[in-house]
């Protein structure tokens, strides 16, 4: 090559060209794929909400299996009878409630604004489920989930997910053996005070048979992720307490 690649002018031109090429390539991919990605995310939310209330394709004790993407929209409208948005203690119906961005609402709450709280009411086999989204921090990145409760705030099912927890350690919050432990745990004391559920080391109950100790067994090597799960349950679900009191 005849070009002198050591010259400053060449370096600058090269850098500018590189930035332009790579920048437009990324911008083009991102914007042309956006509709597909959004649609996938929307279906994922519906799958997650349904998963928490026990509408899924789990078999035996293996991995988690969602309702297929081909029928999720239809199942969602079948099982979720009401979508509520609670704002200032007033619950209003809104069939786009599942699209509310919890991260934005949390930021709003922090900055002194009023936070909108989505709540999904589901019916299955004669039972009513109240499914609330939660969101918090794990070790590396965000963690979030959906918790299905009955009207006494006893857990009927959970779903947890994460953006970047360590595979094999913190990422195991997405495993069935962890999520299933929450089933039947109480959030309220006998007197109706909100207590939450802690992911506890050494709770000496690995099979999680004691359901009223406000604890589930922790994951080995995932202390901070586990603490994050406890924290998001305590913080976010507590906000729904006034609404659940009106159900009695």
């Amino acid at each position, binding site marked *: 090559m005849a070009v002198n690649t050591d010259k400053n002018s060449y370096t600058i031109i090269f*850098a500018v060209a590189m930035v332009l090429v790579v920048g437009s*390539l990324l911008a083009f991919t991102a914007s042309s794929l956006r509709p597909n990605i959004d649609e996938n995310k929307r279906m994922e939310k519906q799958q997650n909400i349904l998963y928490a209330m026990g509408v899924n394709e789990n078999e035996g004790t293996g991995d988690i299996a969602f309702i297929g993407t081909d029928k999720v929209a239809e199942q969602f409208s079948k099982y979720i009878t009401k979508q509520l948005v609670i704002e200032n203690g007033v619950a209003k119906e809104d069939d786009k409630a599942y699209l509310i961005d919890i991260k934005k609402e949390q930021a709003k709450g922090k900055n002194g604004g009023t936070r909108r709280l989505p709540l999904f009411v589901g019916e299955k086999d004669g039972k009513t489920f109240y499914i609330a989204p939660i969101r918090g921090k794990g070790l590396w990145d965000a963690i979030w989930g959906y918790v299905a409760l009955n009207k006494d705030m006893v857990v009927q099912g959970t779903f947890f997910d994460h953006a*970047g927890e360590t595979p094999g350690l913190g990422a195991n919050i997405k495993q069935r053996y962890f999520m299933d432990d929450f089933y039947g745990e109480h959030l309220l004391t006998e007197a109706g005070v909100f207590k939450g559920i802690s992911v506890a080391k050494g709770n000496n109950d690995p099979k999680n048979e004691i359901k009223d100790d406000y604890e589930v067994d922790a994951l080995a090597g995932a202390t901070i992720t586990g603490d994050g799960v406890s924290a998001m349950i305590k913080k976010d679900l507590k906000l729904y307490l006034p609404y659940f009191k009106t159900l009695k």
Partner: protein
Amino acid sequence: MGLLSKKDAKLITDPLADNNPITIQVLGICSALAITAELKASLVMGIAVLFVLSVGNVVISLMRNIIPSKIRIIVQLIVVAALVIVVDQVLKAFAYELSKTLSVFVGLIITNCIIMGRFEAFALANGPWKSFLDGIGNALGYAVILIIVGFFRELLGSGTLFGIPVLGDPIEKTGVYAIGYENNGFMLMPPMALIVVGLIIWVQRSKNKALIED
């Protein structure tokens, strides 16, 4: 390997053992520690690096005569980052489930020093075909170590392989747990990966004395 000349074949076979990126060049240690607590994650990471390293090596090799040497590291970083992000976006749009599994690895791949190391040491000085083979070889060498470490950590730490219990049920006390065996939770901690890699290095060097530096 009839397809490849002897020299080309060496590019693939050398990094598998005598010039292994992890045990000899000591590159890519941080991801080897981070994600080897289970075999499945090790395998996925191995495949992802195989793809990024072989394609990235070819791209850098094609650009090797026009990259200004003053900013070559930045250019290499941009190439890896762009490659990884484009692939991530495409997966998110067309294979959402798969992209969820891989998303954890995206950050780890970009910062994996094997990738930068091979760009710098090989692709900048060699043609695309050789660079491609070098990428495949080094990624396989990396994957082999990851899989060995993942195998031992998952087996001894959780009693499972690919998530399937192979030693019985630790809570119900069946299989080997019935005779008092316990999972070693310590194997799930990153320091144990370092020790397992250390043991591999020891075994390898005691078999091939030529690898020992003084």
